[in-house]
């Protein structure tokens, strides 16, 4: 694990909640937008359908009234000859249906009855044209809501002939109810449309044509009430590309070249958005009678459009709806920004809470870590009570404490061994030096003493006896023997160190000496290979045997380090014999130089050595009843230690 527990905890607590919030925000971001756009589509469809339905209903009364008038006049229930009755009938119809602006009847003779809504002097005006014996009379009658005459006048200059009018000609020509093209009244600037139906006598001979003027400005009014999003709009577009109704009625009128008024073409419409939206509406309309939905962009903003042919009317009109997407989803977008800020704030808060929580979770762990560090430095005893912490850590702690205690015990043992070793080594060293010196000195002393004896006997034989020479030689002989006594005293000093022998576990001693030499072994990069089968307890002076082992291992380490080879190991093996254990120490070094006299004091290959190690070791082993030797063939030092017998 490269990261600290605190870092991981903080990261996962704060990071995970951040990711969670991010996912929620993102999914709602995408799904809400799509849902709202779907919803917007629905809103547009409903607005279009609404407008279409409204327009249809708006036109229906005109159709019905026309039908009713046609049937009454056709059937002769009402005489077309009686203008007063017709005027009254037309007046009644007009007052019932508010969207009708006028009803009229013209016959084949040129007679004409026309009742219309008027601005004054009365709310209704009747125009009567009667042709009698080639004499033409045109009379205007203004009436109030109670059908009382308000004013009347004649217009002899009037040349109006209903039979020349397009509605008359179309109805007669087609012999069926017709709609004229919509138009704009020159005087009122109001858009209108005329529905006309032919009247026949019983012989199916055309008598005249009844017509109704419909004021379609109210459609625009309705459209202006219709809300499509915030800034969207619905309007009516005829198949030939003219805007018939629009929420802003002032925009739809245009003056033609001949001075008459007409509906503006879509391509000349003053609103560039509308132009952009429906410039290609004809292409869209090729799909017959089906609503066409599409999108477009204007000035970088996305727009949605709907083109819906108005069903069940005889007119080639379409409802066109358009609205910027922003109208529907701006709220969502604003909301989303709010949500993101909200999420950021929540993230910050939960992040802080997460950090606090991780801190809370971590505190017992940290307390434990601090305690462990203190324990390892020895500032706190392992027996001190644990800080409050987790079960797992408690268990780990127990194991660690045990381990530490075991290691301490081992350390104490090792230190003890080390202390004893250095003492014993010192004593042995002194002893061995004494022995070595004694041996080396005893040789010349022997020669001196023997020669003196000989000289003395020669001197005694001479005649006359040289008393002085004899006495000198005698003294010298005594002095030589005094030297011998000193050497003997030195020897006995060494012999006094009769340390106690006891049974001990040899394998354990090998482990401990190995630990004592760990630093030197590691510094030399030397592996120690121990092959010790189960052995009986060996009997000897444990510390002295440890010194022998350490001595042999140190020699091996020095040999390996001096040889500078890649193969660096020491192999320690032991064999169980009937009465003793044989120990073998082999190293990867070059072996012993044949010129070196082994086991002899003051003979060494080491520049700083005294040459006592092996001789001390041999003395120790032999004093304990074993042997120490070098097996030249196997490059092994071997020694034996007595062991418990079966």
């Amino acid at each position: 694990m490269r990261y600290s527990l605190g870092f991981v905890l903080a990261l996962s607590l704060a990071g995970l909640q951040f990711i969670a919030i991010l996912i929620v925000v993102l999914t709602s971001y995408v799904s809400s937008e799509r849902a709202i756009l779907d919803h917007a589509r629905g809103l547009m469809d409903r607005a279009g359908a609404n407008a279409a339905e409204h327009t249809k209903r708006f036109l229906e009364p005109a159709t019905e009234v026309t039908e009713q008038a046609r049937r009454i006049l056709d059937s002769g229930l009402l005489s077309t000859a009686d203008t007063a009755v017709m005027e009254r009938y037309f007046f009644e119809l007009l007052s019932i249906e508010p969207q009708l602006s006028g009803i009229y009847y013209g016959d084949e003779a040129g007679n004409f009855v026309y009742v219309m809504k008027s601005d004054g002097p009365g709310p209704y005006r009747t125009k009567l044209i009667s042709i009698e014996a080639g004499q033409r009379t045109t009379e205007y009658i203004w009436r109030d809501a109670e059908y009382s005459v308000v004013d009347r006048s004649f217009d002899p200059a009037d040349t109006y002939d209903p039979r020349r009018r397009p509605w008359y000609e179309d109805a007669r020509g087609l012999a069926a109810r017709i709609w004229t093209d919509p138009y704009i009244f020159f005087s009122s600037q109001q858009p209108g449309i005329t529905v006309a139906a032919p009247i026949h006598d019983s012989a199916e001979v055309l008598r005249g044509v009844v017509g109704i003027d419909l004021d379609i400005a109210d459609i625009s009014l309705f459209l202006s009430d219709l809300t499509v999003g915030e800034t969207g709009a619905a309007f009516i577009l005829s198949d030939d590309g003219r805007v018939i109704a629009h929420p802003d009625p002032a925009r739809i009128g245009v003056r033609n070249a001949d001075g008459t008024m007409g509906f503006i073409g879509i391509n000349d419409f003053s609103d560039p958005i509308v132009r952009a939206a429906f410039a290609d509406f004809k292409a869209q309309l090729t799909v017959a009678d089906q609503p066409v939905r599409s999108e477009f962009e204007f000035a970088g903003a996305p727009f949605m459009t709907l083109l819906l042919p108005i069903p069940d009317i005889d007119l080639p009109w379409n409802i066109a709806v358009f609205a910027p997407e922003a109208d529907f989803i701006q709220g969502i977008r604003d909301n989303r920004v709010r949500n993101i800020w909200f999420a950021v704030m929540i993230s910050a808060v939960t992040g802080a809470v997460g950090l606090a929580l991780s801190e809370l979770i971590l505190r017992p762990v940290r307390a434990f870590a601090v305690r462990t560090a203190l324990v390892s430095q020895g500032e706190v005893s392992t027996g001190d009570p644990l800080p409050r912490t987790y079960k797992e850590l408690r268990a780990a702690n127990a194991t660690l404490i045990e381990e530490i205690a075991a290691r301490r015990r081992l350390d104490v043992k090792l230190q003890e061994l080390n202390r004893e070793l250095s003492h014993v080594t010192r004593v042995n060293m002194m002893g061995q030096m004494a022995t070595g010196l004694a041996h080396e000195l005893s040789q010349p002393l022997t020669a001196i003493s023997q020669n003196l004896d000989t000289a003395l006997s020669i001197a005694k034989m001479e005649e006359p006896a040289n008393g002085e020479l004899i006495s000198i030689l005698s003294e010298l002989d005594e002095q030589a023997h005094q030297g011998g006594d000193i050497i003997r005293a030195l020897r006995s000093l060494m012999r006094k160190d009769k340390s106690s022998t006891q049974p001990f576990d040899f394998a354990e001693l090998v482990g401990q000496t190995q630990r004592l030499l760990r630093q030197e072994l590691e510094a030399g990069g030397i592996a120690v290979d121990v092959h010790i089968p189960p052995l009986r307890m060996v009997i000897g002076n444990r510390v002295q045997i440890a010194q022998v082992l350490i001595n042999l291992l140190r020699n091996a380490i020095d040999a390996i380090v001096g040889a500078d080879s890649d193969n660096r190991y020491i192999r320690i093996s032991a064999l169980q014999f009937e009465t003793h254990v044989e120990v073998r120490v082999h190293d990867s070094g070059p072996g012993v130089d044949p010129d070196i006299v082994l086991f002899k004091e003051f003979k060494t290959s080491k520049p700083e050595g005294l040459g006592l190690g092996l001789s001390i070791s041999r003395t120790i082993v032999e004093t304990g009843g074993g042997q120490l030797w070098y097996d030249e063939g196997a490059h092994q030092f071997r020694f034996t230690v007595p062991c418990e017998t079966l």
Partner: protein
Amino acid sequence: MTDDTPQAATVFLVDDDADVRASLSRALIKRGFQVVTFADALQFLEAYDPEQSGCLVLDYGLPEMDGLKLQQVLSERQIGIPIIFISGHGGVPETVQAIKGGAVDFLEKPFRQKVLVECIEAAFAADAEQRTRDKERILALSRFAKLTQREKEVANFMIANPSSTASKEIGRELNISPRTVDHHRARILEKMNIGSVAELINLSIPQSDRTV
């Protein structure tokens, strides 16, 4: 027996130290000893003829083959020359081992010449005695070999049963008449050049040399 005097005996000195060899041999020669010196054990083994009487003054701490080892080799070869160890080490364990191996003495260097001479003389005496015993034994053996088959049987029976040497018992056991036994006994004593049956038993001729 006159040629086996101590003067004819030789001191064999083995010591790796030339000074010790020189001083010791000079001192001993001066005192009338016959001395041969060797620098190490192998040289001695090569040159020594077991017939030569004398003693071995042996340094304990020799290179290659040390004193103890040489003692062991001599013992294996059944060479009974008496050994006086001289040692610069002089540890108790070494001494014990050397004495166990049959050494006459163990002297720590430096030692007084008088002590050494006493040891040597004692060793010579021991060696001479040993050699005399050996000679008598060999003589007895050669005489025993001259006995006839029956005489050997009678002699063997007497050696094996020293408490029942009456002619009757022997005759019953060997199924011959006591008179014949008497005759054989007289012949045995005569051939072995001894006066009594007790002397025959004292010769203690080994069993292996008495096979019939």
